[in-house]
């Protein structure tokens, strides 16, 4: 086992208050990426 995640980083990753805001941010970002549309690739490169 090699420690690759610092104590501070781990604190940020597991702190419920910080992570609550991260959760809101992630939810919106995922929504924008996934619901942000999809389409053709063939027309784009014409």
């Amino acid at each position: 086992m090699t420690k690759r995640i610092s104590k501070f980083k781990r604190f940020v990753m597991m702190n419920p208050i910080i992570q609550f805001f991260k959760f809101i941010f992630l939810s919106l970002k995922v929504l924008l990426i996934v619901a942000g549309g999809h389409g053709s690739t063939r027309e784009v490169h014409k």
Partner: protein
Amino acid sequence: MSKIVILGAGISGHVAASHLRRKLDKTHEVVVVSPNSNYQWIPSNIWVGIGRMKSKEILFPLAPLYKKKGIGFKQAKVTSFYPEGDNETEKPFVVAEYVSTEKRGETERITYDYLINATGPKLNFEATEGLNPGTNKAYSVCTYTHADHANEGLRALIAEMKKGNEAKIVIGTGHAKATCQGAAFEYILNVEQELRRQKVRDKAKITWISNEYELGDFGMDGMLLSYGSNIMKSHEMVEMVFEDRGIDWILGAGVNKIEDGLAHYETLNGEHKTIDYDFAMLIPSFSGHGFKAFDKNNNDITDKLFKGFMIVDADYTPKPYEDWTVQDWPETYQNPSYKNIFAPGIAFAPPHSISKPRKSPNGTEIFPSPPRTGMPSGITAKLVADNIIDSIKNKKESLHHKGSMGNMGAACIASAGFGMTKGSGVSITTFPIVPDYKKYPDTMGRKLGKTFGEIGLAGHWLKLMLHYAFIYKAKMKPFWYLIPE
């Protein structure tokens, strides 16, 4: 009035059926044909496989819902396709064999105006000798019953470890061409966390075995992603997580035989090796279902419909890896020979792999097949449904809705441990799924910002929220259609 038949009631088939029923009036018939009596939210099988969720929490019976919503349901498996009809039946039809207890073994010709093949993959366990879930100490989490067995196996192992015995755990892919590395990735992290929770982590040696060339390939050739203020490759991110959790890895491994507690594999440099284990979870290869197709004179036309999976509007011309382009990927999922047949989700034949193909000196191809699970399955099913709806309403073929995996984003919210305060998730989004090297030449074919990674408790909450949201959506509860695919 039109009859739309949907084969399969997984994510793709169920999404298509739901949208068709909502948007078409009741004069049009929507019929689902599936051998499964239950809908299951497959991404949560991971938690069933470690005993943190019951299988009943991830499934519900289809028949009552379909009856309530006016969707026909036949619990049957399709065996052959007759896209031109035959001498007895003028309309195109499929032959289905019932599997429900009351009609088991009976066959029926099911005619259609439009056919959506959303049969997904066949879990091809037999492609790997000895790989059969629940035997040889090897398990799967591909279905809820497999996940239940995996949990029983894991519980027994933990009991042994609590007695002081040490254990070897191997998790990854069970075939040289397997896909769905994401599920195995989630499972290994969840198992690792469960062992810590049970205070037996020090008794276990955990190894990741995969056909990937690098960690974090996930069948998508890896990705360059933004992680906080850094830009890193997915293999660096996964390596960081595995090292931090004390998980070893074996890459470029084509598992080809399983014996009791022993996995045989071939490496990319041609060596034949083995690894022993006390518990393994290995994802099998996926294959087509072996359907047959016939024309109206009963001549075999399987090659016109299938290439393993179903042929759609992709460019299947064989060409070198360097010549592959994102434009090869399908956009409408329509079969070119029979315009009223579509195959969204995993059921369509991909034009080529996304990961770079690699062979061992012995000629064995060892690389992941392309994934089409989860979000792409839902999105492609919805666009197929929308095109059929438009075609019916406009009374002419309409293919305005397009969705290439080369112009579509996806999110992989990989659980890394269960628990409202102790849980964790590795959230990775990617845009596009199939890299577009012309559009994004400097960022490995993907758009940075839309391709990012995050690790932490929020990822677990997000995955849990998606679990409840998608089951709500699948149950077609009020305003379900506002939840995106």
